[in-house]
C-alpha cells in the first residue's frame, strides 16, 4: 500500500513544487517571490521526508532540519533587505 501511496504523494508534492515555482518566476512583487522561495523550501522538506521513507533511510532527516532552519534565515534576510536595505544594522 505504501508502495502505491508513495508515488502519489511524491507526485502531489512535485506538483506543489511546480506551482510554487510558477509563483517564484511570475512574481509579480519581490515579496511574492520570497514567499515562493520559502514555500519551495518547505516543499523540499516534505519531499526529502517522503524520499527518506521511500528509501527507508533516516539519513535525510538532518537535511530537512537544516533546510527548515536555514531556509527561514534566508527568508528573514531577504525580507529584511526589502524593508530596510541594510540587513545588519548597527543598533
Amino acid at each position, binding site marked *: 500500500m505504501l508502495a502505491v501511496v508513495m508515488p502519489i504523494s511524491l507526485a502531489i508534492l512535485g506538483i506543489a513544487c511546480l506551482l510554487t515555482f510558477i509563483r517564484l518566476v511570475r512574481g509579480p512583487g*519581490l515579496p511574492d517571490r520570497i514567499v515562493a522561495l520559502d514555500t519551495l523550501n518547505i516543499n523540499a522538506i516534505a519531499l526529502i521526508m517522503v524520499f527518506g521513507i521511500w528509501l527507508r533511510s533516516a539519513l535525510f532527516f538532518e537535511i530537512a532540519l537544516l533546510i527548515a532552519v536555514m531556509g527561514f534565515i534566508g527568508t528573514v534576510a531577504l525580507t*529584511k533587505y526589502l524593508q530596510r536595505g541594510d540587513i*545588519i544594522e548597527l543598533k
Partner: protein
Amino acid sequence: MVMAWLIALPLLAALLLLPVRRHVPFLATPIVVSTPLLGLGLLLSVRSAVFEGRTIAWRQPWLEDIGLSLSLRLDGLAYVFALLVLGIGLLVILYARYYLPRSESTGRFFSLLLLFMAAMLGVVLSSNLLLLAVFWEMTSIVSFLLIGFWSYRSDARKGARMALTVTGGGGLALLAGVLLLGHICGSMELSVVLAQAGTVQRHPLYPVMLSLILLAAFTKSAQFPFSFWLPHAMAAPTPVSAYLHSATMVKAGVFLLARLYPVLDGTNWWFYMVSLTGLATLVLGAGMALLQRDLKGLLAYSTISHLGLITLLFGLDTQLSTVAALFHIINHAVFKASLFMAAGIIDHETGTRDLLQLRGLRRYMPHTALLAIVASLSMAGVPLFNGFLSKEMFFGETLAQGLLGDFNWIIPAAATFAGALTVAYSLRFIYGVFFGGEPDGLPNYPPHEPPRSMKIPVEVLVAICLVVGLFPAYTVGPLLATAALATLGGPLPEYSLSLWHGVNLPLVMSLVSMACGSVLFFLRRNAFHRMQARFAHLNARDAFEAGIDSLARIAGRVTGAFETGSLQGYLAWMLAAMLLIPAVFLSDLDTLAGPVPAIPLDLMTVAGMGLLGLSAIGVVIAHRQRLNALVLLSACGLLVALLFTRFSAPDLALTQVSVEIVTILLLVLALYFLPVDRPDSSSLGRHVRDGCLALGGGTLLAILAYAVMTRPYDAISSFFLANSVEGGGGHNAVNVILVDFRGFDTMGEICVLLVAGLAVQALLKGMRLTAPPAGPKGLPWSTQSHPLLLAILARLMLPLTMLVAVFMLLRGHNLPGGGFVAALITAVALLLQYVASGVLWTEARIALNYRALAGGGILVAGLTGLGSWAFGFPFLTTAFGHFHIPVLGEIELATAMVFDLGVYFTVVGTTLLIVSHLGVRDKRLDGNVNGNAKEGG
C-alpha cells in the same frame, strides 16, 4: 694563465676601485695606472712565443652542455689587439686623470674604463665563440655606461641608448651567429672552428650565419647603414671617445672579421657583403666628416670612414688586403686616439668644439697644434706618417682585386675619392682650428696650453705615428707579420713595408687624392654651407628617438588591442581558449555514450532537474533585477541540494544548504550598496559572442559529464569504504575522507577560508560606501528596525541551533554532518542575532574575537596533525578508541574529532569574520547609516 690574468687584472681593479677610492683614496691612482702597465708587462713576457708564431692557449671547461668554456688564446692577432687595448688604454688613463674635473665621480669613471678594458681584452683573447659573444655584449653594456657617463645630459643619454641598441642588437645577432657556427662545426672552440672552413662554407646555413656575424661586426664597427650611432656616442667624455672609438670598441667589429676570416672568407657572399659595405661606409663617412661642425663629430665620421676602409680591405679577394687591413687598424688606432685627445684638449681649454667658433689656436697653444697637425696629416695619408703607408697598401689592393668584373674600376676610383675627402676634412681640421684669425667668442678666452702631463699621451702617440711612418719595417713589421700570420692561418703573402716603393699607381692615386682634397678643402666653404642648410634638420639621433618612440607607440597600440582593461574581453579570451582547445582534442572521441547502462529515468528527478535548469535560465533572464535573480539563485541552490540528496550524497546536501544561506546573506548585504542598475550597453555582437561561449561551455561540460558517467572505472574508493570503519573509526566514509584519509586537503581548505576572512577584513578596512537612499523600486526604506517578533525568535533559535550544531559536529564521523556544517549552523545562528538585533546589541553579548577563533582553529587542527609525530607516525595519522564508561555506555573518541573541532573553529571564526565585518563595516565611524543616507553611489 697569462691571458686569464690579462682579463682578470682590470676586472679586479675595476671592482676594487670603488671601495678603495672611498676608503684609501691615495691608492686609487696607482691601481688604475698600474693595471694596464702590468698587463703590458704580461704581454711582453710572452712576446717571444707569439712572435715565433705559436698560439698560447688556456682552457678551463665550464658549461659544456651549452658549449661555453673559459678558453683563451693568444696568437698574433690577439696580441696586436691586446697591445692596442692596453697601450692606448694606459695613455687614455693618463690623459683622463687630467681631463676629468675633480668634481666628477672619477672612481666610477675609471672603474668603468677598466671594466671596458677587461671586456675588450676578453673579446680579443677568447678562444670560445660563446665566450667571445659574452665579452662582446659586455663591451656594449660598458660602453653604454661610459657614453652615458654624463647622464644628466640629454644627448649623452640618447647617444648611449642608441649605441647600446645598435651594438647590443648586433651582439644578439652575433650570439645567434656563433651558435649557428658552433652548431655547424660541432664545437664552439675557435681552434676547431677555424679548421673547418670547407664544412662551414658548404653548409646550407652558411649565408644565414654569415649575415648574422657580419651584422654584429658591422654594427659594432659602425658600418653603413649602422653607422649613425657613432657620432652621437661622442657625447661621451673625450677620453672615452679616444679609447672606444679609436682603438677598442669599434675595432671589435673588424677584429671579428679578422678572427673569423679563415672560416668565413672565400665565398662570394663574403666578398660582396663585406667589401660593398666597407666601400659605402668609406665614402659616406668621409663625406659626412667634411660636413661636421663638431670637432668630435668630424673625428667620429672620420673613424667611420676609416673603419669602412678596413672593412673593405677585409672584403677584397686578395690575401695582402688582409695584411693592409691589419696595418691600418694599428695605424688608425694610433693617430685617431691622439686626435681625439687633441680634440679633448681643445675642448677642455676653449670650452667649445664648434668648428665655426674655433680658429687661430696656433698662437695660443702651439704645442698642441703641432701634435694635432702631425696626427691629422697621418690621418690624411701624407707621406712620412704611418697613415700614408697603410693607405698606400690600400690603394694598391683596390687595384689588385677583381671583384666587380667590368666595373672593377669603381673601387679604386671610390677609394681615391674617399682619399680626397679624407685629405679635405683633415685640412679642415687643421686649418679650421689652428689657423685663420683671432678666436674671439670662445667660452674660455684666452685659451692656453693644457698641463704638460695631459699632452704626454698625445706626444707618445704622435711619436709612434712618426716612427712607424718612417721606419715601418723595424717598428711595426714583426708585429704585423705575426698578426697577419695568425689571421690568415696560412703562409704570408709577399709584401714589403717601406716609405718609398717607387712611382707606381698607388702613389699616383695618393697624389691625386691629395690634390683633389686640397681643392675640395678650398671649395669647402660653399659646399659646407649649402650642405648645412640642406641637412641641418637631419639628425640621426632625433630620427632614431622618434623611431623608437613610434615603435613604442605601435607596440602600445598592439598590446592595447588585447589589453583593453575590460574583464569581459579577458574572460572571453580565456574561455575561448579553455573551451576550444580541449574541444579540438575531444573531437577525436568516437562514441559519446559508454558501455555502462544508464539509470532509468524517474519523473520526479527529471522534473527537479528541469526546474533547476529553468531557475538557472531564470537567473540569466532576471539578472538585471538583482533581487529576483538572487531569489532564483537561491532556488537553484536548493534544487542542487535536493539533487545531492537524490544521488546519495547527504553530506553534500547539508553543506550545500548551509553554504547557500551564508552566500545569500553575503549577497544581500552586498545588494544594499549596489547602485541602480543601468541599461546594458553591450552590443548585439557581444551578446552573441557571450552566448556562443556560454553554449560552448555548457555543451563541453555536458559532453564530458555524459561521456565519463557512462564509462566504467575502477576507483580507489573501495579502499576508503573498506577501511573507513576499521582504519578511520567512522562510519561516514565521506567524513572519514575529509578528516582522515584526505585530512590534509581539509587542512588546506580551512586555510583558504581563513585567508579569505583575513583578506575580507583587510579589504574592508576603511571602506565607506554610501547607501542608496531607496530600495529596488525607488521606495524609501522602512524606518522601523528590529521587529520584536524576529528578535525574540532569533534569541530562542540560538540555543536550539547551537544544539543542532553540536549534534552535527559530534555525529559527523558516523553520519552526515561534520565540523564544517556545524560551524556554518553556528555562524548562521549568530548572524541571525546580528540581523535581528543589530550589531551593538549582539556584540555586547557575544564577545568573540572571530579572528583569533579562526586562527586558533588552524592551530588546533595543525597541532592535532603534529600530535602523531610525537608517536613516530606521519603527519595527521589519526587514532581512535572505544571507551566504555559505566552507565553512559560506549563512547568513541578519535583524534579526527579534534581535527574536526579545529575545522569547526576556523569556519565559525571565518564566516563570522566575513559576514559580520561586511555587515558592520565602519558604521561605528559613520554614525548615520539608517534610511537617511546621502545621495551617491
